[in-house]
């Protein structure tokens, strides 16, 4: 407590409130049964961390934290929760490893106590101001920008490649595979029908008319909808 009291009163109050918000939000993420509540508690923690960033003179990162994390990532989480309809309670009853939860909690707390005991009083160590001091002239955004575009330029460029790979991977993962669709959607074996949504009237395939390929009620409306989703554009 003496360390907190060594600070000025507004700083100490800000830290205590933000830390309480962070810890409560983190506990809420873990303990909430509903994934939607977990996501909202995650927003709470992220805002608390953003306040702590401001408190530590990292204004740019605080803004990015709110915009990217709370504005994009959590919204993405919520979209997935809503789209998948997984906002029901978790089935705690059928637990394949009953002893895992207490053991996990004990191991986690043990690790925390170890870290706190081992590093007591000797937290920061190492060289100071190697790649640019925070107190050098210029605002926070300028300092980070200069650091990114000079010292860490290669890492920044690699980051762009990483983002491209992530976008391509997301598209590949999210699109419905065409082969699995053929197994599900067309139970009647038509070997020449590789593209079921192709409803051109002049279709000269033997054994079936153009609109007759996808419309007869073998698959039902759900399969037709799946066909339309894949081969629409």
């Amino acid at each position: 407590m003496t360390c907190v009291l060594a600070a000025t009163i507004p700083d100490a109050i800000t830290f205590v409130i933000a830390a309480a918000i962070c810890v409560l939000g983190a506990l809420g993420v873990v303990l909430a049964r509903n994934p939607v509540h977990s996501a909202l508690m995650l927003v709470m923690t992220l805002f608390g961390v953003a306040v702590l960033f401001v408190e530590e003179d990292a204004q740019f990162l605080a803004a990015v934290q709110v915009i990217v994390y709370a504005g994009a990532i959590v919204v993405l989480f919520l979209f997935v929760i809503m789209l998948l309809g997984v906002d029901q309670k978790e089935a705690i009853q059928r637990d394949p490893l009953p002893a895992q939860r207490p053991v996990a909690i004990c191991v986690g707390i043990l690790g925390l106590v170890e870290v706190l005991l081992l590093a007591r009083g000797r937290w920061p160590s190492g060289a100071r101001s190697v790649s640019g001091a925070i107190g050098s002239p210029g605002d926070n955004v300028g300092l980070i920008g200069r650091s990114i575009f000079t010292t860490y330029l290669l890492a920044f460029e690699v980051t762009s490649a990483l983002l491209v790979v992530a976008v391509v991977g997301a598209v590949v993962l999210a699109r419905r595979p065409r082969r699995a669709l053929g197994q599900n959607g067309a139970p009647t074996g038509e070997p020449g029908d590789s593209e079921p949504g192709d409803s051109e009237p002049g279709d000269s395939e033997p054994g079936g008319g153009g609109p007759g390929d996808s419309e007869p009620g073998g698959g039902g409306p759900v399969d037709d909808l799946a066909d339309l989703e894949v081969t629409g554009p």
Partner: protein
Amino acid sequence: MSVSASWYLTLAAVLFTIGAIGLLIRRNVLVMFMCVELMLNAANLTFVTFARRLNDIAGQTAVFFVLVVAAAEVVVGLGIIVSIYRRRPGATADDVHGMKG
């Protein structure tokens, strides 16, 4: 004078521990993913604290890169989760053992 770095680092350790415990005890894949985000945020807080304490801007730059990696990770991870749920609705982490030997 602001709050000393030890308190920030203690808070970061607590946040990381909560995230790790949540990752271990939860079965819902989405909540496990959120716990990973918690751990990333704890690491970010540590970076910023060391940046202030050691008076080095590189800590904040590292947080910037962590944010980018976290965004990419969320995109790919949610894509995987969506494809898992599409195959078997209501799956938990224990149901996804297709790659077990």
